[in-house]
């Protein structure tokens, strides 16, 4: 018989483990400041 696990439990188990030191990529925008910010 198929038992449906609670979402939290699934989410907990299926959450992709982040490697140690994982740094999320910078947001795509706004970009870098080339001179200075007014």
């Amino acid at each position, binding site marked *: 018989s198929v038992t449906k696990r609670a979402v939290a439990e699934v989410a907990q188990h299926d959450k992709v483990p982040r490697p140690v030191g994982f740094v999320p990529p910078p947001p795509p925008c*706004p970009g870098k*400041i*080339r*001179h*200075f*910010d*007014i």
Partner: protein
Amino acid sequence: VPAAPPAPLGCDDPESEAAAEVAVNYINGRSHHGYKFTVNRIKDVHVVPQGPKNNLMFMELDLLETKCHILSPTPLANCTVRSFAEHAVEGDCDVKMQKVDGTISVLASKCHSNADSSEDIRKVCPGCPLLAKLNDTEVLETVSAALNDFNSKTTGPYLRLLEIGRGQIQYHPAHIVAVEFAVGATNCSAEEAKVNVEACQLLPEDQSNFGFCTGTVVKHPSQDLKVDCQLYGHQVPTSDIPLLSRVFQPTSQDTS
């Protein structure tokens, strides 16, 4: 399975930087007054696919004023950015572009510029000179005195004022007025101008010779005037807008 949508374009991606360069060259090429602007930051970019190898790009750019007048032949890459302490001016532009087969072209742009607030400058640099209005009496007097002084001493052509680019006034520790203005060579020598200045007209487009002057008057304690003018030499207009008309036409903020 339908192909996954392309990853959103990042503001610092090479494709965005290339598009920003096309945009800022377009904006400077159609500007009628003041100074060249350079990209300070790509604030936002959106790509809307139109078909195979055909995308619309919507970009929001933060620009900063450089010290190169719009008529200067100096390449933008060699133009110094006006520093914060020199009362920087920033531009904010929304640009619509199209990229077809890898070639980017500008369809429309809408820009506005504004000087940094005097309060911000004061906070960082209490004694720095602040931008004055271009029709400020002291600015007008200083431009007139500086141009007359230069024309009275030059061995070259008599120069006429094209436009005032900037005026700054400081009061401490001395009362100093600093101005920058664009000039054009006329068909007179300075000597001829002394006889009949009305006859001295700007050279026609095919011989035009524009230049740029900086002038400083120390009003107090001593009345000391310094002026320097550099002529660019004749330039063949690069964009489809004749150089002279670029300065004399009313400022247009939008292009399309």
